[in-house]
């Protein structure tokens, strides 16, 4: 781990479990990562890998019961400069952080705005909650925020209802809402998944621009590696509730050290360039065989082992530790050194 700057958020050994009738689902099982100030961290993984639960745990939005943060700490340094452990905060303290220090934008812009209020009302709500402004001032801020996120004629748009706007517009409104109190951290949970590709690019551009202007950190949750390559400084790959690989974005894309990351990279259609995976013919789009393991019944060893073509007997024995592979790159695979060797031979 090479901290490039000040650490804004550090998640240490976070365990979020859900008690269901069939047993305990360990959605997040000992996740550790950190986000520096001003950096974008992408958390990548397929459905059920625990990435959304991680982000909801940071916001303390896990429905309790059945959910429960059983262990670990989430250390966050807010705008007041005091480091707090989010897991231990009271609900009232947490409300002060939500929207003010940490904001969140969601996957579905179509349903994340309340249909019965104007967008101005909804942006102003956050401003009034956290900055103690009156309704008139807050509506002014709302209009400013709409202009800030690139919505034309903001003075008119503040009085419009969500149904009068397109999906891309609504996501801009969501971003305006999230940024209205200048948060230190923005959690974006698949913010572009529900949008078409052109709008997707616009929204990503906007987020990058806003990040430069405000200097906030972004925790970007996605399963889209194309988006990761465009947005992230560093990447955390999750599988079965655990971090399986973490590192600089260039490192991850050029030299993945975990078979799951390799599989993900190979499942992106990319004409021309291709990551070489040992023992696989070039030029074919590969899918990862099999399915995500049943979260109620995870394998005893490496969670990816049943789907992994490099699995050996040792993989079944115990959960592999996170190996430090250098340059702040970490991988949870006992054979990472072999991949490194092969990849070096190929590039040589």
């Amino acid at each position, binding site marked *: 781990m090479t901290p490039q700057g000040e650490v804004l958020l550090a998640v240490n050994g976070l365990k979020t479990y859900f008690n269901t009738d069939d047993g305990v689902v360990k959605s997040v099982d000992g996740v550790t990562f950190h986000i520096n100030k001003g950096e974008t961290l992408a958390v990548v993984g397929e459905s059920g890998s625990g990435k959304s639960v991680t982000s909801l745990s940071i916001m303390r939005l896990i429905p309790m019961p059945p959910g429960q943060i059983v262990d670990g700490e989430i250390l966050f340094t807010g705008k007041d400069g005091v480091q707090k452990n989010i897991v231990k905060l009271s609900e009232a303290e947490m409300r002060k952080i939500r929207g003010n220090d940490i904001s969140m934008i*969601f996957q579905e812009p179509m349903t994340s705005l309340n249909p019965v209020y104007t967008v101005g009302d909804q942006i102003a709500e956050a401003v009034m909650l956290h900055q103690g402004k009156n309704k008139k001032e807050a509506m002014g801020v709302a209009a400013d925020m709409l202009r800030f996120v690139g919505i034309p004629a903001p003075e008119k748009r503040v009085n419009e209802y969500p149904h009068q706007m397109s999906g891309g517009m609504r996501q801009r409104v969501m971003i305006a809402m999230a940024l209205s109190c200048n948060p230190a951290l923005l959690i974006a949970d698949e913010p572009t998944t529900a949008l078409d590709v052109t709008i997707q690019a616009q929204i990503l551009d906007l987020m990058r621009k806003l990040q430069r202007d405000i200097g906030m950190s972004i925790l970007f949750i996605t399963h889209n590696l194309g988006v990761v390559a465009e947005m992230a400084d560093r990447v955390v790959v999750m599988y079965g509730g655990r971090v399986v690989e973490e590192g600089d974005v260039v490192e991850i894309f050029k030299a993945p050290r975990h078979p799951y990351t390799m599989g993900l990279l190979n499942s992106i259609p990319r004409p021309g360039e291709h990551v070489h995976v040992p023992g696989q013919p070039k030029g074919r789009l590969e899918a990862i065989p099999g399915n995500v393991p049943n979260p109620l019944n995870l394998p005893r060893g490496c969670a990816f082992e049943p789907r992994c073509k490099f699995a050996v007997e040792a993989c079944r024995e115990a959960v592999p530790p996170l190996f430090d592979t250098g340059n702040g790159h970490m991988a949870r695979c006992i054979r990472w050194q072999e991949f490194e060797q092969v990849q070096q031979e190929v590039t040589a």
Partner: protein
Amino acid sequence: MTTTVPTPVRKPRSQSQWSIVWSQFKRNPLARVGLGLLGLLYLMAILAGFLAPYGLTEYSTTDRISWAPPTPIHWRDAQGHFGPYVNGIRRDIDMETFRDKYVEDTSVTCPVKFFQTHPGMEGRTYRFLGFIPTSLKLFSVDAPCKLYLWGSDSYGRDQFSRVMYGSQISLSIGIIASVLTVILGLIMGGIAGYFRGLTDTLIMRMVEVLSAIPELFLLITLRALFPLNADPILVFYIVIGILAVIGWGGLARIVRGQILSSREQDYVQAATALGASDTRIIAKHLLPNTATYIIIFLSLAIPGFILSESGLSFIGIGIVEPYASWGSLLKVAQDGGFESLDARPWTLIPGVFIVLAVLAWQFVGDGLRDAFDPRRRR
């Protein structure tokens, strides 16, 4: 060269939900009748003091005229003058039944006077629109005549005046009780649906227990908790409270159901993520979604409460003397058994008002329900 100037295309304006509902409502003839009738009834209640020739409790201690029939109004007197007047009343005895009967005393005539004030008559003073103290009456006659438009009761009080004043209580009790019910139902249903778990179970079991007890029995039991001879004003509020306590269950159930589904909406999570508190989310993001339902519920609950109040007053545990409601006035009709109904059918007039008010509210409620229902749009 002639050019035709293109006529500017009128942009169709999008209709708001309320304007659609209103135009739908207007197209329903029954609903229109109901609304008009309600307007008249409530106007009557507001102007009760002005319309009633006598005070609510006004009667003569020296010349008590019990159970007088409606006073006939004459238009042309012996001298040929035109104008409404009444004759005096003389008590007589029916030699067949040995009961009092009243005959017109043509030797005494009193003209009906319009827009007269009655200075010094404490009983006839009222506050016009609740503010201006006055004793101005739409119509009245001077002593010694009596003008019993709809007959008198056993104390010799004018039933017409009492029906006017009674409308104030009967019509307001329905509105106040149903507003209270809605507030209770929204709070309880909102809490149950939002917090779920044990809170939900407790509240919903309470609703079930309430609905398992027969309503009339519950009304009587609850009323028995308070002294029967309590202050009449206090009794008015007790009755409202009892009605609300009994009525909130059904609404709470439906509100709970709606909250259960809308609390899972993304915008609720988004609001939480912005730091909104539970109370704020319930009040601002969840309950407004039930608005349509609440409006319909209100308009259909009000006639129910009017009926319940009448029922309570009819069995003597509702509004007490000296105040009057339509129910308590109707109770007068059964004094003396069925035979008395035959002898003085005018005592049933308050019942007509109950029926009218309930019907009108139901027409309006049905009209609203249809107007809000997009599948019934015409």
